[in-house]
């Protein structure tokens, strides 16, 4: 007995915000933003719940599933629509899923945390779990702060994890270092604060260490990975990880040029983009790796299909 990722879905708000849109009112430029982040445009709008419902519905539709087929919803988000109740309760209601639902928050590493938790729930007797990452970071970002406004954006992605005869979850690693709070945080009612260079440095290190642990548990090396799906925060971080993991850019899913950093949504959005482009084949080994405020980190190796 094991578990597999059966399929995926994605959802983005309609409003496109380009680098030029920021250059029109902030002291920044398309070149500066592109050179340092790799981001060219992003989407703003919607609520965490509405985007989560759209991504969840997309995943269910692609797989021909109804709400009755889902017995657990895990919503990874760092921007819930309200304090109480959990946003996943609304999402479950809208999608008509049965059984349980909960939110989890491990910042930008949250989606990979949620995948590992979903795998555990399969062992607890669940059959099919809808795992959604949805965030609306534009709501907690100061749009007049040029250092953060250009980075954070909105979106959602989802996958369905289901019971299977063969095991597809081959190796994982989760971690947290709460002493790193001062370098990346957002207080209630406040805006995102980030010490960019320190986050960059730590992000590269934790992604490598965490990925290597997951790879080791899976019994493979970077050479065996068909697709790396990293958290989409900054292209320069991804390139630094590519080099150190020995996984080239052409085996890496990149969507941040069109989405910016969407926190929990970034990994499933990158996965969906790569899948729709025909870059996922049955039997492929996929490495998910994320890092976020906390700092948190999480990596997972799965066999696709």
């Amino acid at each position, binding site marked *: 007995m094991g578990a597999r990722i059966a399929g995926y879905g994605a959802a983005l708000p309609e409003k496109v915000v380009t680098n030029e849109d920021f250059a029109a009112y902030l002291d920044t430029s398309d070149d500066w933003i592109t*050179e*340092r982040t790799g981001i060219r445009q992003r989407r703003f709008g919607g609520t965490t719940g509405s985007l989560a419902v759209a991504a969840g519905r997309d995943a269910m539709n692609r797989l021909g599933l109804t709400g009755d087929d889902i017995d657990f919803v895990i919503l990874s988000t760092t921007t819930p629509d309200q304090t109480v109740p959990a946003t996943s309760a609304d999402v479950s209601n809208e999608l008509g899923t049965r059984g349980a639902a909960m939110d989890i928050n491990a910042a930008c590493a949250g989606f990979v945390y949620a995948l590992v938790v979903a795998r555990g729930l399969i062992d607890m007797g669940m059959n099919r779990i809808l795992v959604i990452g949805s965030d609306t970071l534009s709501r907690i970002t100061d749009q007049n702060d040029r250092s953060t406004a250009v980075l954070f954006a909105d979106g959602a992605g989802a996958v369905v994890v289901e019971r299977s005869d063969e095991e597809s979850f081959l190796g994982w690693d989760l971690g947290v270092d709460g002493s790193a709070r001062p370098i990346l945080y957002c207080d209630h009612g406040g805006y995102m604060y980030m*010490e*960019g*260079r*320190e986050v*960059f*440095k730590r992000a*590269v*290190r934790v992604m490598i260490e965490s990925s290597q642990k997951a790879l080791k548990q899976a019994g493979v090396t970077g050479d065996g990975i068909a697709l790396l799906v990293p958290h989409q925060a900054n292209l*320069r971080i991804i390139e*630094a990880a590519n080099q150190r993991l020995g996984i080239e850019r052409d085996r890496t899913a990149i969507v941040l040029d069109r989405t910016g950093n969407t926190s929990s949504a970034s990994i499933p959005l990158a996965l969906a983009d790569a899948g729709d482009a025909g870059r996922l084949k049955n039997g492929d080994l996929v490495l998910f790796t994320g890092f976020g405020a906390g700092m948190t980190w999480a990596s997972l190796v799965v066999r696709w299909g």
Partner: protein
Amino acid sequence: MDRDEAFERFSDCAIKVLGVTKDQVKPEASFAGDLDADSLDLVELIMALEDEFSITVPESELEGVDTIGKAFDLVYGKLG
């Protein structure tokens, strides 16, 4: 480790990380002006130097480090 040997190893890191040539790595060379290196390139260079020399350079100490010479002095000051 003497200063020349340390600079040699420092120089190898800079060549590799910044994609520059050996003769560009001189004390007065400015990261932004001469080496086309931005703030994230500098962070990557420091990360490589931390690994090379088994040292830790806190982010706060990078304020005002804008030339090869200043970066080397910072690193060399951390060697026992």
